[in-house]
């Protein structure tokens, strides 16, 4: 179809309701996608930090026996290959951790366990190594955070679902807009058909308009979404305490490309709807 066919009325109408609907669905999709991407980053951060961390505790009320067992554990750890690092938390450090919760109690008199933090260890293998030591407990840090990671994964799934639903809604809206344009511009399109225009040429005319409106809507949605995401990111960053927005550079690129994909999806959906509808004509 030659460019000057773009003079047709359906090409020149201003973006209307369809563009606004596209903006709304694009905004929803981008917010949901941003949440999914941020949660993926958070889940990776948490699981990455804890997956290989193991805590060995020597729980014994007898201080002498406890220290002897702890020495034995440290000695065995030295002999185990493949361990990243092993850090024995001093009793002063352990007491300092507990002290704020023990109002008025002499923490030096509490039978606190000896804590040994390991990085890069395998919990099952370590548990086997210390099986003959009765007061030694081996715990994988990741196992304790498992429910949290599963919760994050579930929330990520919900966010992805919302994003996909918004994208599907955009496609359906585009199909409805295409059918409406076909009905509205029926007389003009009938003339084009009679003059020998193919279904594809006619569908390009309508999808050209839909692509333009979808582009306008996606741009509005993207602008609004970026504003919201950046505002939330700055609020999270202001909290501090190691919490970050967790949107990587690739996540930002993904967010910027999603509206383009949304426009493509809308155009394809409209094209398909138009070709099916035009096939009903004589």
């Amino acid at each position, binding site marked *: 179809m030659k460019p000057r066919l773009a003079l047709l009325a359906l090409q020149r109408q201003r973006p209307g309701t369809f563009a606004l609907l596209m903006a709304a669905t694009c905004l929803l999709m981008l917010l949901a996608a941003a949440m999914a991407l941020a949660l993926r980053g958070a889940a990776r951060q948490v699981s990455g930090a804890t997956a290989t961390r193991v805590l060995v505790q020597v729980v014994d009320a007898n201080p002498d026996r406890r220290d002897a067992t702890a020495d034995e554990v440290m000695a065995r750890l030295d002999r185990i290959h493949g361990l990243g690092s092993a850090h024995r938390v001093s009793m002063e450090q352990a007491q300092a951790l507990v002290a704020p919760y023990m109002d008025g109690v002499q923490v030096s008199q509490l039978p606190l366990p000896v804590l040994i933090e390991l990085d890069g260890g395998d919990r099952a293998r370590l548990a086997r190594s210390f099986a003959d030591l009765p007061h030694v407990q081996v715990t994988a840090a990741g196992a304790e955070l498992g429910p949290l990671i599963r919760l994050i994964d579930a929330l990520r799934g919900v966010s992805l679902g919302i994003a996909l639903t918004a994208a599907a809604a955009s496609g359906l809206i585009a199909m409805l807009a295409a059918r409406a344009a076909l009905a509205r511009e029926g007389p003009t399109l009938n003339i084009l058909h009679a*003059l020998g225009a193919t279904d594809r040429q006619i569908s390009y005319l309508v999808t050209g308009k839909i692509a333009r409106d979808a582009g306008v809507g996606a741009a509005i949605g993207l602008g609004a979404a970026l504003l919201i995401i950046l505002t939330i990111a700055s609020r999270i960053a202001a909290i501090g305490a190691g919490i970050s927005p967790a949107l990587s550079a690739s996540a930002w690129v993904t967010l910027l490309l999603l509206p383009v994909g949304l426009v493509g999806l809308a155009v394809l959906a409209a094209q398909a709807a138009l070709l099916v509808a035009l096939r009903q004509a004589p």
Partner: protein
Amino acid sequence: MAYANHGRRQAASIALPFKCFTWLALPCHAVVNRIFRGAKRTTMAGIVHFDNVGLRYGTGAETLAGLSFTLMPGSFHFLTGASGAGKTSLINLITLAQRPSRGIVSLFGEDTAGLPRNRLPAIRRRIGVVYQDFRLIPQLSAFDNVALPLRISGMAERDIGSRVEELLDWVGLAPRASAKPATLSGGEQQRVAIARAVITHPELIVADEPTGNVDPDMAARLLHLLEVMNRQGTTVLIATHDVHLLRQMPGANIMRLAKGRIDDPTGSVRFPPRESVS
């Protein structure tokens, strides 16, 4: 029944002198020859062939029934009949705007019922249609309306301009090239519609009441325009119930429709037309 005619031989017997219209800037034959140079013409037995064709809307009675006829290449036909006789329905079948309920409609030697949908546009491009209500696109200028078939057929933009301008000049509308249809008179719109119908050198021109909206003088001019094209080998079918129009083409074939059937089984040339035609 075959409505066969041979336009070139027939043209020699046309009583009207071959003269140019006052709104033509150049001698008709020279302009037409130049505009339609290189136009391909079909040499098949029949450019339009109907075999026992019927058309029914919904579950009602047949609007058209048992139509069988052939339009030969280069022939000139009038299609007459009272209002509601089925002229427009017949034209819709020929222009592929509708499909028959039964029977065979062959265009340019091909049975249209068996053609895949993607081949229909190519057939439509071989037919120029002038509608009774013009069907110009209101948002486009006269120039762009006339250029539309060329753009649809994919012609390069650089080749379109001169061709459209020449044709607009030929129909006397060069000064109104940028005017929108709403600002044109009925006759001017009719001429734009005719220019649009002929710009692609169609092998068949079908006109539905082409003079229904114009004064007698303009009607004569438009008829002469179609006559000139017929001289170039284009097959012409004009649906009309205007007796005066029929009188101006004494050598033309006349098909008369009555209640959806062809009324005259002989298919012979009727002149002067029967008064009942009107």
